[in-house]
């Protein structure tokens, strides 16, 4: 199916999110959309999917002008959209979610559960998507939920499939799987609109790349275009794709984790007994420890245990010598821990609140934002204005509800809050997920700056690029354990092996051992 967008314009009040956009998607084409945060990619896709009505412009499907008043219209016209998040019913099974609205029924109208399950299993096996039709959606990790979404769209036989940052929450392996699926779909004549901030992915999979900036199409490039060319086109300035940083000058131990063990919640599919299993490490002032690993190997639980959001059953956590193993999250925040949660909408933001309110979400009761019981609205507002400018958060005002910001800009709100204040220890989980290359550069710079000011930093990331860019030392997590500490010069192959759980190298044992044996003793920075 050939899809043409002609002069699509969408305004939100004074803001023009899409400004006369022309785009042609050919049958069997993988058409990538690139653009900085807030460029209008998601808005354009929501318009195409019938979720938003355009103010101007039209769609032409195989030569026929068409309008979509609701997603139902779009689906009937063969357009499918895989949203990133929260589009599943948590208490339904995978199969029920996938067939929602297109339920398989018996003659009498009763649900045919067996056929439902079989269809789902068949489809997920055909594309190697490995989803268990009987698992409850609330029990499966985000990455698997993502796959459920994909199966859902496939089941509806979409001829144009919209994937809005599908890879943001996928592991490298899962991304490869997805690309395989995408190529198969393409071979079958399905067109795909693919949105991603990862240039490498776009270059690998796209047939053509359209770049948006501030609501306008600024160019179309072949996938052979270079990183720097695409980045320049997106952001409008030269982007340093790899932040340069001086060697770390580690000081005193700030975070000392010894033998930390966190039990598995019933949400995890892994049969491993503990989500975090006897993990020991230290982070010094002025040092960045990067925790690499495939998502779902206990990193989330580790971070939450560090913040006091999950209870540990064994081991200890010390902050600058003080035992905070059983301290409340508030105590930890007050003691100088900054926390960037992995799931921004779940744990990091109140989407109904204004940008200004979200910028003080964990410091609302401290000066200058509060005096006694009363909020100091002026201080809140002026700080917000400053943070919004500092972090280039694209929002119409500081009183805009955060939920209306683009994904990347929502992330920047959290970053501005947590990096913008004085902390001793920064725990950041997937800090740049969903950010454009320009913003990643900026955030990396800020994190390195924090390090240089003596903050101890723990970065959890499933992006090896990010780990390489930031880490002074790398720890690899696999099935709840740290399988090795490595210097940042380690090859991607070696890290990959560690991430796959291949053996524990000799220095893994010594490093971890040294940390737990003599917590006070300085270890050599690597």
């Amino acid at each position, binding site marked *: 199916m050939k899809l043409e967008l002609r002069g699509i314009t969408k305004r939100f009040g004074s803001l023009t999110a899409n400004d006369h956009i022309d785009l042609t998607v050919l049958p069997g084409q993988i058409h990538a959309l690139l653009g900085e945060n807030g460029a209008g990619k998601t808005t354009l896709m929501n318009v195409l999917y019938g979720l938003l009505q355009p103010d101007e412009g039209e769609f032409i499907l195989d030569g026929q002008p068409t309008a979509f008043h609701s997603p139902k219209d779009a689906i009937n016209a063969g357009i499918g959209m895989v949203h990133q998040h929260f589009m599943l019913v948590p208490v339904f099974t995978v199969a029920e979610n996938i067939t929602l609205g297109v339920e398989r029924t018996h003659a009498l109208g009763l649900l045919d559960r067996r056929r439902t399950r079989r269809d789902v299993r068949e489809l997920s096996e055909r594309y190697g998507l490995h989803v268990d039709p009987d698992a409850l959606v609330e029990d499966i990790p985000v990455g698997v939920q993502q796959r459920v979404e994909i199966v859902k769209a496939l089941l509806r036989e979409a001829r144009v499939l919209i994937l809005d940052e599908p890879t943001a929450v996928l592991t490298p392996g899962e991304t490869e799987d997805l690309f395989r699926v995408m190529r198969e779909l393409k071979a079958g004549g399905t067109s795909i609109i693919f949105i991603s901030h990862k240039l490498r992915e776009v270059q690998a999979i796209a047939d053509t790349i359209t770049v948006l900036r501030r609501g306008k199409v600024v160019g179309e490039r072949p996938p052979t275009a270079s990183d720097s060319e695409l980045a320049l086109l997106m952001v409008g300035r030269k982007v340093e794709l790899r932040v340069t940083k001086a060697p770390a000058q580690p000081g005193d131990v700030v975070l000392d984790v010894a033998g930390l063990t966190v039990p598995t919640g019933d949400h995890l599919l892994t049969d491993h007994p503990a989500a975090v299993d006897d993990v020991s490490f230290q982070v010094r002032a002025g040092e960045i420890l990067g925790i690499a690993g495939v998502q779902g190997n206990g990193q989330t639980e580790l971070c939450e245990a560090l913040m006091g959001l999950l209870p540990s059953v064994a081991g200890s956590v010390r902050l600058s010598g003080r035992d905070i193993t059983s301290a409340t999250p508030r105590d930890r925040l007050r003691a100088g821990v900054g926390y960037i949660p992995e799931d921004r909408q779940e744990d990091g933001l109140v989407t109904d609140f204004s940008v200004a309110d979200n910028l003080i979400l964990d410091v609302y009761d401290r000066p200058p934002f509060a005096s006694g019981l009363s909020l100091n609205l002026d201080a809140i507002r002026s700080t917000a204005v400053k943070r919004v400018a500092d972090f280039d958060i694209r929002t119409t005002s500081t009183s805009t*509800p955060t939920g209306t910001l683009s994904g990347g800009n929502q992330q920047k709100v959290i970053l501005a809050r947590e990096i913008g204040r004085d902390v001793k220890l920064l725990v950041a989980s997937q800090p740049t997920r969903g950010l454009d290359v320009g913003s990643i550069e900026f955030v990396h710079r800020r994190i390195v700056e924090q390090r240089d000011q003596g903050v101890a930093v723990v970065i959890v990331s499933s992006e090896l690029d990010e780990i390489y860019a930031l880490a002074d030392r790398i720890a690899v997590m696999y099935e709840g354990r740290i399988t090795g500490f490595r210097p940042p010069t380690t090859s991607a192959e070696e890290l990959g092996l560690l991430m796959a759980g291949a053996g524990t190298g000799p220095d893994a044992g010594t490093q971890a051992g040294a940390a737990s044996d003599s917590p006070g003793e300085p270890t050599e920075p690597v």
Partner: protein
Amino acid sequence: MSGPPGEGPVTPGPVTPGPDGPQSPGPGTPQDAGTPAIATSASGDAPPPASGGEETAQDGRQPFGRIILESIVEGNSAMVTTLAIVAAIVVGGLLIAFTDPVVLTAWSNFSANPGNAFAQAWDSAAGSYSAMFEGAIFNPHTIAAVFQQASLASALHDGYVSAVFNPLSETAVNATPLILAGLAVALAFRAGLFNIGATSQWIGGAMLATWLGFGVSLPPFIHCVVCVIGGFVGGAVIGWVVGVLKARTGAHEVIVTIMLNYVMEYLLSYLLGTSALGKPGSNDLISPNIAGSAVLPHIAGPSLRINAGFLVALAAAVGVWWLLSRSTLGFEFRTVGANPSAARAAGMSVERTWILVFLIAGGLAGLSGAAVVQGTDHFLTFQSYGTYGIDAITVALLGRARPLGTVLAALLYGGLYAGGVQMQAVTQTPASMTEVIQALIVLFVAAPAFVRALFRLRGAKAGGEGQTLAKGWSG
């Protein structure tokens, strides 16, 4: 999920800042129920990463009821609420007309005299409504009476002037307990909690205020204040029990509050039968009258029932507004209400918030009890609580869980009651018709899509849509 499958996209109302400050608008009401394929869940809706500690049903996932209520409270614009009231009045007028025997007779002769049929119907409805207006707001006859007096002084002295203000006074008197109890529901709702237990808290406050009213003797002003504080404390204790049960055991507040309503109703009956609260020497379940020193003073002369209780209610509304939009505590309440996981990650104690919210909400409902006993009734019976606790829920809903809105909704309800009495006195229409109108308002408010269709409103859609589309990493 935002609506029954197959329904068009349900969108929250336009971005209408609440009357009480820089409130964020629309809830995380999901958008695309129109897609059978896609069921969305609101932002706070993903499963908690892993359950630990005292997880309860409340955090992490929104109960279905809450989603519905939320879409009523926040998904409705002030416009839709106003139109719902208009629609209810119109339908109420039809009901008034067509339950009137005179009108029915006229309509049975419709073919003979169609003009008369319509005229009778109009007269019936208009007559009832104007009587209602005279009972609730002001009665032109009373003004005329004032001018017939020899001088303003004699008009004042003989009570003709107060008669002018009597309807408004009655409206305020009726609204007072509803404002306070409504705030108790609204405050809890803003923190993501259902307070179905305003009745029990009302009883707790009323019992303590009554007991202090007849049981102790204090100088006039002080006695009155002590009783009002007693009312707050009495209600707060009952509310606190709910909060603690929820925080410590995870018991759902709806169940707990409903059960506590029964407990308190029976406790009230029991105590009224004993010497602790009952009137000595009486077999009726009734308390002694409170001392004159404990009575809330009239604020507009002795012949108007309006009393200091109304001022207490307005002050409470201002207090709740300040608490919710200007205080750190309220920030916590709203955060816990909007996204408990984020609240926890931001260092807030969700459990502590629950307890505090129910404590304060209970106190407000308790004040409502005190206001009735000290303001108008002066004693307590086993039925004094009436329907305040239930009406409070509708008042809070109508007021969109905002303090100013709650005051306005309570005044509307108070006016309907006051007017209903007059309507029954002057016309054939039974006062219970006001309850029908109240019910209609609620019905229309609960069906915003219907009201929008009825009045062909499209505005809400354009403003509200997309608000929650920007979800996930993909924005």
